[in-house]
């Protein structure tokens, strides 16, 4: 974990670790707090080695008390610190939802602008590891419904490294959802890396026949689908939302203005997922530019089952994206 002189390959996990580490080196108000972030090294091994480097006052292992330590993170932020709260997975985050929905999201507005809460809350999200119904939710789209917080979903190694410092600079609560299947993915960390905005979407691949809009753990699948579509003669543009709140409507609409067709890929359950908000905004602003009704590829509306074949059947799959895109192009 040296500083960023050389371009190099890194895993998403290492990128998050480095982001935390550099933030802690740069600002002594930053600390990491959560279950097993210290001695265990993090449930997804993100914070391995940080306890040794920073000591127990800055890498704080907590009891299994999600509401307690998340609320403590908010309080510490009110008290002038810059906490990074790690909730192991979004599945457990609902135990702390009161602190997020009723405190973090309301305090600034309700106090007439007096108390902002500069906290960052990170958590793993998503399915695909055969962890069954209680460990496989994708709740980022759901959280994005809440005004007063920001919700970001780094999908690339570079974003994993460089969105966190921006989130820490943000004066308001930022929730970061890290898809559990991304931790082992590799990507390039450019030598000239620097903090990036946490509010805009990116076009990850240019295309002109259809826009595939996605985020987080579904980006790799969607890029693969775009490759496959290319082989089948369909040129797909791929948008990585990066942030679900705010949602970068501009980039979405620009893309749709070029392609006139759109499919949203969202690992959340279909009904009422962030996919519906995206489609609704497109229909409101670009209704007459659409050549076909927007499509969506989402998770089936079931608790995610354990066996591989059923889990795969429940989740958005590359070929399903291809099929839906072809249908939308043909429509």
């Amino acid at each position, binding site marked *: 974990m040296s500083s960023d002189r050389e371009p190099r390959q890194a895993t998403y996990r290492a990128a998050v670790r480095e982001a935390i580490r550099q933030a802690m080196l740069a600002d002594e108000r930053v600390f990491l707090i959560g279950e097993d972030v210290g001695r265990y090294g993090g449930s997804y091994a993100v914070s391995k080695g940080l306890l040794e480097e920073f000591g127990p006052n800055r890498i704080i292992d907590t009891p299994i008390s999600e509401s307690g330590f998340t609320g403590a993170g908010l*309080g*510490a932020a009110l008290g002038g610190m810059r906490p990074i709260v790690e909730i192991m997975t979004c599945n457990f985050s609902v135990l702390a939802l009161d602190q997020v929905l009723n405190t973090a999201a309301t305090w600034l*507005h*309700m*106090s007439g602008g007096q108390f902002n809460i500069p906290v960052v809350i990170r958590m793993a999200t998503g399915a695909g590891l055969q962890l069954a119904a209680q460990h496989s939710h994708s709740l980022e789209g759901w959280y994005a419904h809440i005004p007063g917080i920001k919700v970001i979903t780094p999908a690339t190694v570079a974003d994993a490294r460089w969105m966190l410092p921006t989130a820490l600079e943000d004066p*308001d609560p930022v929730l970061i959802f890290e898809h559990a299947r991304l931790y082992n993915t590799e990507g390039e960390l450019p030598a000239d890396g620097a903090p990036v905005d946490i509010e805009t979407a990116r076009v990850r691949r240019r295309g002109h026949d259809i826009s595939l809009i996605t985020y987080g753990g579904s980006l790799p699948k969607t890029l693969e689908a775009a490759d496959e579509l290319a082989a089948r003669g369909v040129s797909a543009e791929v948008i990585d939302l990066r942030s679900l709140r705010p949602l970068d409507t501009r980039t979405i609409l620009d893309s749709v203005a070029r392609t006139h067709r759109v499919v949203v890929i969202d690992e959340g359950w279909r009904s009422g997922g962030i996919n519906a908000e995206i489609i609704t905004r497109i229909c409101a602003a670009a209704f007459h530019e659409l050549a076909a009704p927007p499509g969506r590829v989402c998770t089936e509306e079931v608790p995610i089952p354990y066996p591989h074949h059923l889990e795969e059947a429940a989740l958005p799959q590359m070929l399903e994206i291809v099929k839906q895109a072809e249908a939308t192009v043909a429509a």
Partner: protein
Amino acid sequence: MTTIDAALARHLLREMLRIRRFEEKTIELYQQEKIRGFLHVYIGEEAVAVGVMQALTRDDSILATYREHGHALARGIPMRSVMAEMLGKAEGCSRGRGGSMHIFDAHHRFYGGSAIVGSGLPLAVGLALADSLKQRNAITVVFFGDGAVAEGEFHEAMNLAALWHLPVLFCCENNFYGMGTALHRAQSVTDLPTKARSYGIQAASADGMDVLAVREAAATAVREVRAAARPYFLDLQTYRFRGHSMFDPELYRSRAEVEDWKRRDPIPRFAERMVSTGVLAATDYAEIDSAAMEEVEEAVAFAEAGSLERVEDLSRFVYSETDDEQ
């Protein structure tokens, strides 16, 4: 017991009367529909907030509940700004946006005003954690009701504060009811210090109808918290003389019980004792009281003359800078 001089006696009496008169006025204003929403008054419990505040410095942080007007006033937040808040005026301490349940004041380190039972407890742990990490010499006081003791957040916060040796003073305003549910119907063990001690937290009960007893208990507690950098739990036994909120038909307790407690009203009780022991003159009460009433009238006039926030500002402060979502 420490000796009480006239200045202190006057101060304590004045603070309690300011709250009493303020609260009585809010009921009036509620009946006039100038205050709306939920209104929870502190009448009968004034000795608790006033007694505890005496032990704090301006560097200490405070969290309270939706029944927090008394704490705001006793902390020194100007009455006019609290009253303007009650009326939803832009001149209110929370810009009028919070109303009765959400008094905030950064200048006084008054962190609200939360209306979710128990939710202030983890925040208090966090404020104290920040102080501890920054080696700031200050404590955090969190007020909550006996009803909050049943919440999971109470348990989690008590354990964290004890485990991490944090300077938190837990002030349980034990008025023996959470809405209509008596303490003995809510808790299998009604002796609350026993609970605190199960976390290894030092704890004491005090007569919350006696401002001197509260003041002394708080002084001891705060001394311990500062010296040992450990939490402390106070069970301050008190009673609310009015309903839970303005909607409460009070079906769950007897008139006689209420009358019994009213005989222990902390204000006349303290005043009489001060007069009978010669600390205050017989005329002092009326003088202090009329000053309090005057202050209330001024506060109302200020609040009534206040302005409404512009509707165009509705979306300000959803985020600190600009509101980005469309």
